[in-house]
């Protein structure tokens, strides 16, 4: 204890003996106080506890009798000495007051600081504290997969590691030691990375920047784990593994145009850039979650201390209507035709007429979604590339005519060339004037005949039929940048457009739209909007089928049947006249149409390129499939649809009938008169 220990202090105590003054810095009685007969520290220590009880150890009560400084000692010298002492010490009361003030000041400083820390800046400090022990973990949402209707995975996400080296960290004291260390490291990594030791060593000695070089990319996560374990076990520094999510396309270019591709943005998230990857990006991507955890020293979360800030929403899956093997066959056929005919591009669309499902949508050129080299190749040609359909569009005007008073037997005089309203039209090949029926005009694909048929169809009706068949209206396919084709309204038709529309010139459509035209005829006159997505699996894991497609009756069933009967003549005519038997598939009846359109050549500024088509359906008695082939700018001597596109139709249709196990109908070609008297 402090002051109460001293005798003087006892006497001059300003307050009651029961309340010792508050502690100052001095924690035990000074030697002088003890000299003066004060109780020893232990006793003084006890006094405080006993004080409230009063009595026994009360220092004040006993000491006045002792030889305290204020005592009535006889010796004058002693008195003088005491006087000096007193002068030196000043008044105890003042000393007490002063120390009290000091103590009070110090305490108030502490209290002020306390208020500042706890009250005013408390929130900031507690946040800072939380930062040290709390960790916000980003829980990445894995991007969903894209599969075909039969479950073949077209796009999936895999975790891969990037192996990064910091060469200065892989070093020894001398150049020789550095060499040894790096050689050892290279030898260690060579096996798991499937690289030569020399190749790794070269990277370590020639980093892309002072302390950074990517040793390997796309290392499977399992290999990455093994490397990490090896490095940890040997306590080696200088190699870091950076996990990345990458998109894997196991089918390589299979349905690449539909699937699209992804790129990685600055947050290292995968973002779809074309096809389904783009149009279903938000479903596929899901949403990253955030979790806040208090972690222990080894990183294990402390129980009950974690807090989910934002739950992770896993990416959903998209299932397409595409059939993988059919798609592959169509892609092979496309590539082969482009190779043989030296064409610019090829598209093949296989559609199921009754459902509108697109079973294959092939194109050439195509691309590898995992390494996109040319953005132009990533354009989804069947849904966005437009071309004049040529003779394959003759069925549209013919259908309009059949539903407005004409019959398949309506006869026309068809010369080789005709002039209408000052515009002259001629057939593709020279022939004497014939008396053809409407059926014969379509089957022989006579432009001159179609010009005459168009004269019996009002422009608005012709336009309406084009639109009802789906040309010039959006397809509704959930793909980015799809085209609705080019079909000007009758008010904007110029020159001979009314007549050229009858044979598919002056209008442009996509391959999907042209397949849709024939699917409408095949489906007994009811157009079912095409679909490419069968359904999606949401974050909850529940599969949701795509909404039912829109259905529209375009033709009377009888008109559709008449058209199929006419189109069934085409394979036979092609085989017997042109020696192109591509519509003859034994066991099945096939209804088809060829087309050779003139296409504008932007370089030569003329209609001097060709677009060759072959579209058909089978079995004709009850069509289950439509295959539409279009090949742009074939450069051989023969550019006719049957020669250029026919073989691809034959290959794909035959494969589709067999692989979908569509029973043969052994159908006979109906007897439709093509000529009249």
């Amino acid at each position, binding site marked *: 204890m402090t002051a109460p220990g001293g005798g003087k202090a006892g006497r001059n105590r300003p307050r009651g003996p029961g309340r010792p003054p508050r502690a100052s810095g001095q924690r035990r009685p000074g030697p002088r106080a003890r000299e003066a007969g004060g109780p020893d520290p232990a006793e003084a220590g006890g006094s405080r506890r006993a004080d409230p009880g009063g009595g026994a150890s009360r220092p004040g009560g006993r000491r006045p009798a002792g030889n305290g400084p204020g005592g009535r000692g006889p010796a004058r010298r002693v008195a003088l000495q005491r006087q000096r002492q007193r002068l030196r010490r000043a008044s105890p009361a003042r000393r007490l007051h002063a120390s009290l003030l000091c103590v009070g000041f110090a305490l108030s400083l502490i209290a002020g600081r306390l208020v500042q820390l706890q009250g005013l800046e408390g929130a900031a400090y507690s946040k800072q504290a939380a930062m040290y022990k709390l960790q916000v973990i980003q829980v990445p949402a894995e991007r969903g997969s894209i599969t075909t209707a039969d479950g073949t995975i077209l796009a*999936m996400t895999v*975790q891969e590691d990037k192996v990064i080296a910091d060469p200065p960290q892989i070093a020894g004291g001398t150049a020789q030691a550095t060499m040894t260390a790096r050689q050892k490291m290279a030898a260690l990594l060579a096996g798991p990375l499937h690289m030569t030791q020399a190749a790794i060593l070269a990277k370590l000695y020639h980093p892309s920047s002072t302390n950074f070089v990517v040793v390997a990319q796309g290392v499977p996560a399992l290999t990455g784990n093994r490397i990490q374990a090896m490095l940890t076990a040997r306590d080696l520094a200088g190699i870091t593994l950076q996990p990345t999510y990458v998109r894997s396309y196991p089918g390589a270019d299979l349905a690449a145009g539909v699937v699209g591709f992804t790129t990685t943005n600055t947050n290292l998230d995968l973002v779809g850039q074309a096809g389904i990857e783009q149009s279903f990006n938000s479903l596929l991507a899901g949403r990253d979650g955030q979790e806040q955890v208090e972690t222990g020293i080894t990183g294990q979360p402390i*129980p009950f201390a974690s807090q989910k800030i934002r739950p992770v929403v896993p990416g959903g899956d998209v299932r397409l209507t595409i059939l*993988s093997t059919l798609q592959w066959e169509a892609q092979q056929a496309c590539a082969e035709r482009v190779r043989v005919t030296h064409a610019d591009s090829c598209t093949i669309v296989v559609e199921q007429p009754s459902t509108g499902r697109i079973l294959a949508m092939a194109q050439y050129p195509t691309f590898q979604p995992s390494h996109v080299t040319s953005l132009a190749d990533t354009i989804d040609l069947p849904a966005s590339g437009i071309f004049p359909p040529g003779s394959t569009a003759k069925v549209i005007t013919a259908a309009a005519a059949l539903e407005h008073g004409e019959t398949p037997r309506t006869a026309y005089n068809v010369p080789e060339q005709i002039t209408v309203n000052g515009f002259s039209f001629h057939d593709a090949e020279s022939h004497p004037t014939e008396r053809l029926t409407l059926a014969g005009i379509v089957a022989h694909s006579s432009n001159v005949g179609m010009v005459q048929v168009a004269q019996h169809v009002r422009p608005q009706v012709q336009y309406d039929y084009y639109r009802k068949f789906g040309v010039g209206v959006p397809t509704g396919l959930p793909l980015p940048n799809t085209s609705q084709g080019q079909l000007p309204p009758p008010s904007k038709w110029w020159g001979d457009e009314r007549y050229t529309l009858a044979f598919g010139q002056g209008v442009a459509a996509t391959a999907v739209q042209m397949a849709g035209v024939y699917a409408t005829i095949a489906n007994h006159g009811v157009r079912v909007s095409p679909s490419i997505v069968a359904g999606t699996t949401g974050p909850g894991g529940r599969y949701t089928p795509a909404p039912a497609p829109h259905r529209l009756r375009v033709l009377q069933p009888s008109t559709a049947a008449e058209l199929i009967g006419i189109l069934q003549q085409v394979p036979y005519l092609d085989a017997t006249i042109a020696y192109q038997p591509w519509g003859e598939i*034994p*066991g099945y009846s096939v209804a088809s149409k060829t087309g050779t359109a003139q296409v504008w050549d932007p370089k030569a500024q003329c209609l001097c390129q060709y677009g060759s088509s072959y579209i058909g359906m089978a079995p004709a008695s009850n069509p289950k499939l439509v295959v539409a082939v279009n090949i742009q700018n074939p450069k051989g001597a023969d550019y006719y649809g049957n020669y250029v596109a026919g*073989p691809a139709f034959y290959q794909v249709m*035959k494969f589709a009938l067999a692989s979908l196990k569509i*029973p043969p109908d052994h159908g006979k070609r109906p007897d439709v008169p093509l000529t009249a008297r």
Partner: protein
Amino acid sequence: MPGQRHAPQTRTRFVFLVVGLLGGGLLSLLMINTILATGAFQITALQQGNVTLAQREQALQAQVASQESPASLAQRAATLGMQVQPRLHFLNLKKGRLESEPNHVPGIPTVPGYTP
């Protein structure tokens, strides 16, 4: 007085009771925390194991996917010497016979690449 004589004994008992309760409480709290912490370690270890397994599953899935892709199947079929059947054959269940289409259809020319 007997009450006063018993008082220290009762108090001792009471103190022991309180100390016992407090001690027991503290011990059980310690045990719960220990168990929870063990659980946390276990969860962390299992989660790490789970990640490794998920990665393995993913790797295997990717392998299966690339091997069952049509291109890879076609290539392996070709290396095994398999060929695409050029002609269609139908199994007639009514007659219980395999019906093959003829090699040549009357009136239909045969051109390269055309196999009826």
